[in-house]
């Protein structure tokens, strides 16, 4: 399977271990990723808060590039996924396509398919391939599957999974031999867009998520978004300090867990880049 790959800015910086692990794992299960040439930032939250035209034109530049490649677009970042889906949702409308033509000077046919990488991992064909290659099942891991917001919502834009009862991550964890934990905050927001501008609010939201996951018996998280990861993992130290708690829940990208099950050593999956040390949980 071949895709036009849109990494998003985070994967080139704070989430480099996500890219490191996904490139390894994708190669192993025959997912070919061709990076879109000279891609630009999708505008994230600031663009749609300030200027709707910008919020559509910025991702549209990448969408048009992917369309020219003749491939479906795939992105590992939930925030980029949301912005790309929003833009292509609006661009189904002729009026928006005309506006875009005047801004970018390029035509968009309006048929690009865009997916989150996790969606590819739960396709039957890929599931079969992963199953065949599992060397070390993830026994001992009690995983809290954390979807966050933008992967699922709003459903008519994301069309990812059921927004209130998603099962994509659970399917993957079962396949890898891990244990899925039932908990409450799987689709609550972690306050990613406020990580820098309103950190107190973000810490409150992250605290609730950490508290519920711990109370439900989880010993790690699985995420599919670099922003969820940076909030849950990097900010865990600050939340501990602020709320006088001792949370120590490592946060894994789904690609890292797949990589571990396929037998990759932790170092090759970038597990030493995490701020909350995952080795304790893995040695169990």
């Amino acid at each position, binding site marked *: 399977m071949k895709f036009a790959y849109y990494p998003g800015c985070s994967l080139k910086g704070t989430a480099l271990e996500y890219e490191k692990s996904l490139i390894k794992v994708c190669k192993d299960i025959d997912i070919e990723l061709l990076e879109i040439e000279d891609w630009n930032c999708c505008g994230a939250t600031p663009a749609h808060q300030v200027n709707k035209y910008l919020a559509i034109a910025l991702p549209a530049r990448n969408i048009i590039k992917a369309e020219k490649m003749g491939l479906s677009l795939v992105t590992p970042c939930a925030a980029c996924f949301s912005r790309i889906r929003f833009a292509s949702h609006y661009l189904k409308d002729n009026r928006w396509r005309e506006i875009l033509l005047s*801004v970018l000077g390029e035509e968009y046919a309006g048929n690009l398919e865009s997916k989150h990488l996790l969606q590819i991992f739960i396709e039957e064909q890929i599931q079969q391939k992963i199953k065949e290659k599992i060397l070390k099942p993830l026994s001992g891991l009690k995983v809290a599957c954390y979807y966050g917001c933008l992967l699922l919502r709003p459903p008519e834009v994301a069309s990812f999974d059921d927004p209130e009862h998603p099962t994509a991550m659970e399917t993957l964890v079962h396949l890898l031999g891990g244990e899925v934990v039932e908990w409450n905050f799987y689709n609550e927001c972690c306050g990613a867009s406020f990580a820098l*501008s309103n950190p107190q609010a973000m810490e409150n939201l992250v605290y609730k998520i950490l508290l519920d996951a711990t109370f439900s018996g989880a010993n790690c998280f699985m995420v599919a978004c670099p922003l969820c990861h940076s909030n849950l993992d990097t900010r865990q130290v600050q939340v501990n300090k602020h709320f006088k708690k001792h949370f120590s829940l490592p946060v894994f990208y789904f690609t890292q867990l797949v990589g571990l099950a396929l037998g990759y050593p932790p170092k090759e999956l970038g597990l030493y880049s995490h701020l909350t040390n995952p080795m304790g949980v893995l040695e169990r």
Partner: protein
Amino acid sequence: MELLFETAKLKFTRIINQLAENSVEKCYLCGKCTAGCPMAYEMDIQIHQIMRFLKLGEEKVLLKSRAIWQCVGCQTCSSRCPKEVDPASFVDALRVYATLTKQKASERAVEQFNYIFLEIIRHLGRIYEVGLVGLLNIFYMQPFRDIALAPKMVIGGKLNFIPHKIKGSKEIKRIFLACEELAQKDLKAKKELIEKEFQTTF
């Protein structure tokens, strides 16, 4: 607070409706949006109250509220709305309107974050995380904020100190200019049209 009903206030409702590409009239104020809102505990007016004030055309109350800048954009309200009103799109429309009419945001930190974030993209085409945090710390006058996280992040290789400028950065600058112009033109045209409509109706 004075809540007098004036025909002029309806113009505000109309313009936000058009910016959101939706109609607030559909909302029957059930409160389901507020029930699921993760930021509700911090907001001065709740999301269903925002919808009510919108129906009443209370421009001042809405644009001065902290709530419109405290919305995190998680889309929970919009996906749960039984009337498909999409409250999040109205909050976005209010923020866009406030930005276009150059009103000071009640949450300065969010406004500054948006500004710096977009300026970096305007010039580089991609976000430069280290620069973003550095500039924000200067703007917020907290130069050492989050500095405790830095050593571990450097060891993990998570901090990319060299900014990457994309080849099409000129194109991005052009997109920014065109979009800003379009947004202003569009707002002006909408206002004029609504004005005309009102003159023929009343």
